[in-house]
């Protein structure tokens, strides 16, 4: 148990003991010492209702807090809100009675996060987009059936799907078969930057769109075994349709998820746009998978071939059914493009803001890849340690997704409170990994802290950008490779600067700098 969490709550408990004392409850742990785990049974646990948090108003609950003008919190400023809530209430905060959502318990304590993860049973439940949930399980039930994929799917169906696909998609040696493919795409992106930048070497304000194209091109080669040609000068018609659909989906899904969910009552315009985009993505994906399946049927058996692609391995699992691969590819598009792109944008911004660190990284790349035409292999990637430290540090201070969470599948004691089944426990990694309690000089950008020889003793569960355990990010291996290779190629080729007014990070709903991403890419000589 974390001392911080207990001491603060116990202090409150002491202060109001005359008011709050309840014969059922006895708090033995009144000191600041760390409680040993074995004493857990001696302690009386406090009730769920006693978890501190903002008071809900009658009828409208806590939803009003997120309404424009009268509310205190803007969605884009959830980062600030989380920090305020922790300061006001402590390491565990309950936010209940938000319109059409289960109660949320915000957790600001790495040790308690570890506890929730370690207590996971066979079917961990990860809260996710309710609109996608509706699309897969109600609207297009005929297509998805019991094979919903992994995003917005829970229980036995989630387990069935994940168990089928997780071996090929998570085994590091399979991801490493894609190093060359990912490197080629990164090189195409380098060429594209040379083409699109202006005379002063600055790229346009919508550079994030270009990053999206790189990301889609990379993931399509992994999920569909094809080159979509997103980074070519003339884009093919069906690629264009897919790109447009993906843009529409990202632009609208946040509104469905974070604003008042009118779509649950009637077909709003945003909802219709989102559904059309999802259908388009599904149809285009299905077309490519069917083609791949036909191609594969002509080929000889691939299962014995250790160089078989991810798609070949997935098709092998159920050779007559193209749906498994289609649904997996769709999930990879839904959550593997904007996240990876946001990470790249954020890392580029940090490179521009920390020129000294960019210089160290450039030197590392030069020493490991002295010739610009040298091809990357696992060996070189392993040695690029400062690159990985830089990425980790960006994720610590600016995690692309501010938090993670689990819907409790059983009642559990957290921070000394009994939390019932069904509550969404939200792990506040952004606040935790920016707090002095977990990282020394937390507000300083220091990739060096992640290097092995001077690694700080930090809590391993404080910064967890890909999650942990049975529901850890399924695309992690590919996302890491894509990001590492692209950043290495960009720093190798360009000196990266940002000459405009500094940017603020905002939740959009991914966490990245808000404003024009007009980086300056000057050729390195």
């Amino acid at each position, binding site marked *: 148990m974390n001392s911080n969490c207990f001491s603060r709550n116990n202090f409150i408990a002491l202060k109001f003991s005359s008011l709050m004392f309840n014969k059922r409850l006895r708090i033995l742990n009144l000191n600041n010492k760390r409680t040993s*785990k*074995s004493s*857990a*049974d001696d302690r009386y*646990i406090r009730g769920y209702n006693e978890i501190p948090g903002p008071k809900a108003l009658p009828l409208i609950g806590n939803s009003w807090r997120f309404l424009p003008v009268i509310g205190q919190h803007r969605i884009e400023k959830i980062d600030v809100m989380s920090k305020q809530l922790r300061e006001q209430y402590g390491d565990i905060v309950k936010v209940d009675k938000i319109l059409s959502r289960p109660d949320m318990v915000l957790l600001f304590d790495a040790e308690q996060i570890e506890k929730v993860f*370690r*207590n*996971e*049973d*066979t079917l961990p439940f990860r809260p996710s987009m309710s609109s996608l949930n509706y699309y897969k399980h109600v609207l297009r039930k005929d297509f998805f059936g019991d094979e919903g994929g992994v995003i917005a799917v829970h229980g036995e169906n989630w*387990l069935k799907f994940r*168990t089928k696909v*997780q*071996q090929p998609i*998570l*085994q*590091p040696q399979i991801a490493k078969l894609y190093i060359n493919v990912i490197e080629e795409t990164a090189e195409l992106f380098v060429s594209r930057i040379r083409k699109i930048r202006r005379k002063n070497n600055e790229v346009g304000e919508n550079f994030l769109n270009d990053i999206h194209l790189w990301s889609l091109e990379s993931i399509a080669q992994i999920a569909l075994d094809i080159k979509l040609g997103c980074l070519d000068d003339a884009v093919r018609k069906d690629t264009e349709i897919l790109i447009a659909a993906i843009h529409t989906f990202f632009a609208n899904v946040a509104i469905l998820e974070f604003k008042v969910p009118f779509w649950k009552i009637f077909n709003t315009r945003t909802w219709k746009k989102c559904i059309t985009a999802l259908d388009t993505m599904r149809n285009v994906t299905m077309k490519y998978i069917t083609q791949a399946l036909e191609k594969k049927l002509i080929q000889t058996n691939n299962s014995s071939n250790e160089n078989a692609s991810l798609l070949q391995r997935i098709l092998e699992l159920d050779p007559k059914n193209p749906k498994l691969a289609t649904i997996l590819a769709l999930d990879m598009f839904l959550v593997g493009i904007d996240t990876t792109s946001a990470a790249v944008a954020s890392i580029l911004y940090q490179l521009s803001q920390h020129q000294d660190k960019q210089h160290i990284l450039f030197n590392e790349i030069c020493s490991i890849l002295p010739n610009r035409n040298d091809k990357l292999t696992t060996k070189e990637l*392993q040695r690029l340690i400062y690159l990985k430290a830089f990425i980790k540090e960006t994720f610590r201070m600016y995690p692309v997704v501010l938090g993670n969470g689990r819907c409790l599948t059983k*009642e559990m*004691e957290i921070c000394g409170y009994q939390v019932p089944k069904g509550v969404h426990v939200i792990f506040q990694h952004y606040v935790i990994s920016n707090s002095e309690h977990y990282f020394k000089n937390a507000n300083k950008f220091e990739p060096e802290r992640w290097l092995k020889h001077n690694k700080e003793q930090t809590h*391993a*569960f404080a910064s967890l950008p890909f999650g*942990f*355990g*049975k529901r*850890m990010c399924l695309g*992690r*291996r590919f996302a890491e490779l894509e990001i590492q290779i692209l950043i290495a190629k960009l720093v190798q080729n360009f000196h990266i600067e940002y000459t405009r007014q500094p940017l603020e990070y905002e939740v959009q709903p991914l966490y990245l700098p808000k404003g024009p991403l007009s980086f300056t890419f000057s050729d390195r000589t």
Partner: protein
Amino acid sequence: MKYIPTNKFIQSRSLTTTINNLQEKEKSTPQYEVTFVKKNGERIKVTCNEGDSLLDVVLNNNLDFDGYGACGGTLTCSTCHVILKKEDFDRLPDTPTEEENDMLDLAYEYTDTSRLGCQIRITKDLNGLEVCLPSSINDARS
């Protein structure tokens, strides 16, 4: 409040070795011995096939180690954590990969000679290997 240990982990995991080819294998491949030492001192000696990972050994022998190998060997958890003797740790043919190290950082009761069981394959050289299990959630609570 008691955490209930469950066999569901074992039922639901994708076995890297299915029962059929297990029987096939038994005829042809050499058999070795491995001993697991639990936190309470209990020693469990089992036989296994050449090339099996320690995770395979636990699954194939139906050993009921609380939550062991939850992710099925995909390097996303650290529940198959084992602690080796220094000399055994040093003589393993491979050092941990980056992916394994990332997960070892998250292992409960991590030591300098910790490894993940899913990454250790039993060969002739490792016949008779003895590994210790860290305490599980259950041990911590009881």
